[in-house]
């Protein structure tokens, strides 16, 4: 192989490049895939090497070109590696993982190059903001796929992402019904009511010193009511449909909002508060015009944390008595049926929904707290 490419003429530009080169050398020594593994012929393996070396070599060019080449090289190699393992699950040898690691390092390098780019056009900036996490995520999936298939991990322990993808594609109606039940009913309702209740409790505690002293310690106690303890009780009280799940979500989201709002209300500056005093502004005027805007960064913190908590809460609550629909129901049932791919399909949908949810909250945050140093840049 080594006379095809003179390794010495390759000069990496980054530590990832050097490490990748070392891994390639390691793969050569530890025996090529062809000798050990079915599914790979000389041509494929040569192609993988060419792609990786090409990527390392092209790294020296201007960022845009380097990133493109790194992207193509790393992902092309990964694709070839995965293609070869199909039908030969569980046969991977050390060189398989070494080549995979080399490709991964180059993808990392690609992300680094992309992160350093300062595009001028808005359009390119947006594209970059999407591409960078996408590459990162893609590699989580590639490595997952390669390891589960390469090592032949039993399907019921951890199915490969490709199987999960197929499952998602084939179960859209079921997934849609589950999302409707869990997210559009329980999560949204519980999130709104729970966050709202935490917020109002914090205001009440702030307004009435008596409540502040009495309510906060008790609010703290609510914080740890564990889902597994509360969920059955809620089912008892509110029936087995989504209302009981929403109740669990309310309990889970209440506390983060309470704590953060209380902290946020203390965050406004002294001089700003004195100013309001000179206007003899009423409690509520000071609250709305000064203290709540100043508390906004804290409140959004809670909203962000709650956006994921609510989802976990609703799903887990469905482990305890539900109608036969819902993401949590599906997960617990399909585990029992050994349809782990379906479990992961639901998890993937939950992760997607949670990310969208969080993203929406984060967008609101940027719009509302544009004045805060953390948003203005710092």
């Amino acid at each position, binding site marked *: 192989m080594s006379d095809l490419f003179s390794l010495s003429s390759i000069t990496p530009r980054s530590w990832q490049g050097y490490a990748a080169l070392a891994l390639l050398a390691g793969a050569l020594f530890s025996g090529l895939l062809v000798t050990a593994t079915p599914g790979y012929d000389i041509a494929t393996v040569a192609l993988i090497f060419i792609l990786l070396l090409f990527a390392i070599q092209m790294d020296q060019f201007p960022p845009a070109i380097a990133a493109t080449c790194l992207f193509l090289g790393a992902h092309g190699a990964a694709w070839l590696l995965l293609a070869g393992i199909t039908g030969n699950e569980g046969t991977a040898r050390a060189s398989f993982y070494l080549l995979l690691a080399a490709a991964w390092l180059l993808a990392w390098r690609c992300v680094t190059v992309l992160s350093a780019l300062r595009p001028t056009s808005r359009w390119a900036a947006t594209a970059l903001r999407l591409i960078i996490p996408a590459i990162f995520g893609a590699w989580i999936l590639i490595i997952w796929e390669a390891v589960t298939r390469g090592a032949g991990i*039993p*399907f*019921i*322990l951890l199915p490969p992402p490709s199987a999960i993808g197929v499952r998602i594609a084939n179960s859209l109606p079921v997934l849609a019904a589950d999302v409707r039940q869990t997210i559009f009913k329980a999560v949204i309702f519980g999130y709104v009511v729970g966050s709202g209740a935490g917020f109002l409790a914090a205001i009440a505690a702030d307004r009435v010193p008596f409540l502040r002293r009495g309510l906060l310690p008790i609010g703290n106690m609510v914080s740890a009511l564990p889902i597994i303890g509360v969920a*059955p009780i809620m*089912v*008892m009280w509110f*029936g*087995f449909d989504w209302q009981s799940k929403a109740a669990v979500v309310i309990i889970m989201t209440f506390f983060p909002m309470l704590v953060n709002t209380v902290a946020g209300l203390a965050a406004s500056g002294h001089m700003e508060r004195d100013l309001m005093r000179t206007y003899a502004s009423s409690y509520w005027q000071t609250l709305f015009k000064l203290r709540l805007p100043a508390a906004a960064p804290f409140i959004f913190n809670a909203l962000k944390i709650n956006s994921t908590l609510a989802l976990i809460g609703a799903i887990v609550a*469905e*482990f*305890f*008595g*539900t*109608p*036969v629909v819902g993401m949590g*129901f599906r997960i*617990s*049932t399909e*585990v*029992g*049926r*050994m*349809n*782990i791919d379906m479990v992961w399909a639901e998890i993937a949908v939950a992760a997607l929904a949670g990310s969208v949810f969080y993203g929406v909250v984060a967008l609101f945050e940027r719009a509302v707290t544009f004045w805060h140093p953390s948003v203005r840049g710092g």
Partner: protein
Amino acid sequence: ADKVTLQLKWVTQAQFAGYYVAKDKGFYEAEGLDVEIKPGGPDIAPEQVIAGGGADVIVDWMGGALAAREKGVPLVNIAQPFKKAGMQLVCPKDGPVKTEADFKGHTLGVWFFGNEYPFYAWMNKLGLKTDGGPDGVTVLKQSFDVQPLIQKQADCISVMTYNEYWQLIDAGYKPEELIVFNYSAMGNDLLEDGLYALEDKLKDPAFEDKMVRFVRASMKGWKYAVDNSDEAAGIVMDNGGQDENHQKRMMGEVAKLIDNADGKLDPATYARTAKALLDQKIITKEPTGAYTTAITDKAIK
């Protein structure tokens, strides 16, 4: 001594008294075995544990085991201590459901996590839809208690003869106030607690021998437990069981399911179980090699 790890399907209770007795009474030790018993719980799938290498042998229901087998975990039934099924559906007499004909339009509590197959097989037989429509039944995923009945959230709920049934009695229901649909009595039962090991490991004669000794000692344990049910319940309590009275009663009921079994699998029940699973498309093809009588044959000589 040879190490064996047993993964139970549920928490420590008299349902598994035989194994605890065998360990406590030294039956395993006498066979040269060092057995570790891992209790289960909600959301512990023994099939996953054995696939992950966390156990050598598991207690499982046939439905779950066959499903896992098709998903690439080659489980093989090596012994079947429970001859009969303990699952039943109960409805209060003053409720709307008196016979199978009354199910239509009502809400029934069912356990999932692999325990739902007998129910669906039964509904299949009755020709009832389970999607909640007016000409079918509404299914409620029941958690591990009898609250849905007490709360009147369901018209009938699933119970085990040896467990939840007694919770209903404790809650104030009298046996004569309950209508019971027993899966075994109706001939709708699917095989419950059996012992399963991995096919490829069984090919190893040393492992097979270990399993033979394990099954032999376990069945001895079961026999002892059935004969001395109060003592067995005490042993279960010592190992983390809850509520002594309850364990005693459970032991009594479990004894009826064991029914003097020798641990040998009844092929007819197996065939019925496999057919029911096939009918519901839980599994897609007729399983082969899913059980072996070799172990029990050697164990019980």
